């Protein structure tokens, strides 16, 4: 369990993290989302006591990070792939981390095996690809078999098999009751991995909710119906005063009614349905909508400017408003 209380970080007059309060709970994978520059990395570094908060506090299982006995046994983190001395071998890199927390050297071989780096354990990490560096970072996080794990962009540089593996690793660890906190820019990946979401924008907390609620709250959901008897169905809907839109393929899109209710309606009217599926927007759409709103809300100035200037493409960094979740 990680608890943040009023966490704030200022650099000069810039506020990178602004009064963040949230709790990362065990047993689920918690996704940590936000645009570039939202303060995700700063927050994660403060969680590991690498950066000092300007104010506020962080508790790891109720303790300050510095009070932890052998912290690697409580919390493991993958911050950036290559926090590694390139001249040291993968094995020795892990060994010196292990020794500092009195983790037996045997465990180093184990984690190397787990991440699939055992065959290159004695190679200097200088020659490692991004994906291999990532695996080494994951190995370091697993070293102390900690109850809390943090991953910053874990799939960076991994190939599809590696992505699949890390996703299932994280889910498996959460299923064991561990606390898993993952930041990523890949919404589609997050949608598959995380159950709970913490979203920040401009250093402020914007959402702390389950994945399902987040998507439901921040996007349009509807029920899609296909039937061989569209006219009869239309009448039935009208009789029940349910409004429907018909899409290009002739399917009904119904907002504001649950699929169960429509199923019952069809049954009462002896209607054959070929599809009755609740549709949800993607996490990306929900995320874009939420962050777009926040930028408009927090900063009126650059919004108008960007809208004008960004004819072919959005302005860098300030362009949340030009793309809302338009995508189908």
């Amino acid at each position, binding site marked *: 369990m990680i608890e943040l209380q009023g966490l704030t970080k200022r650099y000069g007059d810039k506020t990178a993290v602004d009064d963040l309060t949230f709790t990362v709970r065990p047993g689920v994978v918690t996704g940590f989302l936000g645009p570039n520059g939202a303060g995700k990395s700063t927050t994660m*570094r403060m969680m*590991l*006591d*690498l*950066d*000092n908060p300007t104010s506020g506090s962080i508790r790891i299982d109720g303790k300050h*990070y*510095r009070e*932890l*006995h*052998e*912290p*690697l046994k409580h*919390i493991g*983190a993958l*911050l*950036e792939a*290559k*926090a*590694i*001395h*390139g*001249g*040291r*071998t993968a094995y*020795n890199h892990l*060994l*010196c*981390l*292990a*020794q*500092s*927390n*009195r983790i037996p050297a045997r465990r180093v071989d184990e984690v190397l095996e787990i991440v699939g780096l055992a065959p290159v354990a004695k190679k200097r990490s200088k020659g490692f690809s991004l994906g291999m560096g990532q695996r080494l970072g994951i190995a*370091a996080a697993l070293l102390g078999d900690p109850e809390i794990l943090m991953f910053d962009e874990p799939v960076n540089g991994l190939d599809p098999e590696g992505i699949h593996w890390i996703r299932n690793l994280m889910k498996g660890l959460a299923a064991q009751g561990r606390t898993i906190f993952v930041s990523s820019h890949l919404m589609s990946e997050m949608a598959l991995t995380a159950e709970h979401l913490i979203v920040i924008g401009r250093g402020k907390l914007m959402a702390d909710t389950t994945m399902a609620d987040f998507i439901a709250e921040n996007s349009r959901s509807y029920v899609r119906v296909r039937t061989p008897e569209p006219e009869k169905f239309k009448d039935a809907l009208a009789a029940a005063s349910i409004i429907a839109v018909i899409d290009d393929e002739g399917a009904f899109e119904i907002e504001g009614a649950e699929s169960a209710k429509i199923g019952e309606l069809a049954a009462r009217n002896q209607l054959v349905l070929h599809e009755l599926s609740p549709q949800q927007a993607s996490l990306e759409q929900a995320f874009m909508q939420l962050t777009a709103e926040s930028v408009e809300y927090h900063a009126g100035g650059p919004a108008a400017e960007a809208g004008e200037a960004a004819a072919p493409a959005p302005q860098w960094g300030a362009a949340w408003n030009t793309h809302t979740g338009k995508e189908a």
Partner: protein
Amino acid sequence: MAATTAVLQSEWTKVRTVRSTVWTLASAAVLTIVISGLFCLLFRTQWDTIEEGARAQFDATSQSLSGLFLGQLALITFGVLIISSEYSTGMIRASLSAVPQRATFYLSKVAVAAGITFVLGVIVSFISFFIGQAILGGDLDTSISDPGVLRAVFGAGLYMTLMVLFAVGVATMLRSPMVSLGILIPFFFLISGILSAVPGAKDVARYFPDQAGSKIMRATIAPDDPAPYSAWGGLGIMALWVIVALIGGYVLLKKRDA
């Protein structure tokens, strides 16, 4: 609190598992011994042509340790890399996540650096001394049992240790290996030496860590030595520099975001 012995062991592993340790320490040893030997050979062959003043300054012990002037540059590199490579590679974040107690982390690093250099330094000093005396030969050489000689040879080992610790402290403050080496190497290789020869600056340069500290390596103090401190006093001045650098490093390490 991560156990200090565990952190010491970890720091020892860090030092022994990178190549830069081997090559910096090896070149420090080789440079010191070989250059010292060459200077001894030079003095022995040129003794007759050396003018009286210089002869009066001659100290067989410090002569056989004179290669340290170059050897210390390799030691400084070692001291700088031991800490700044953590920053330049990003390893510092992994290290501090594992050992969040900055004092334990820093002191362990300093202790490992000091331990290694002290052992190596004493060994190199004695080797350099004995080889130097052998080259100087019967007329010029001195014996380890002569007054002040053991102190000087042993002191050379201490000098090397303090020099490495000074580099560690400065590099902790500066973080970047390039900046640290770019300041330390020219300073000790050129600037300190030049300033100590300039009349006006001489009196200040005398208190520079290398100038003050190197006095320990003379077995006999020349009668006209202007420095107002003893051999041990000089080493003490150097130690003060080191303490200031190390404290500066610690304060910044503790205060700064990693």
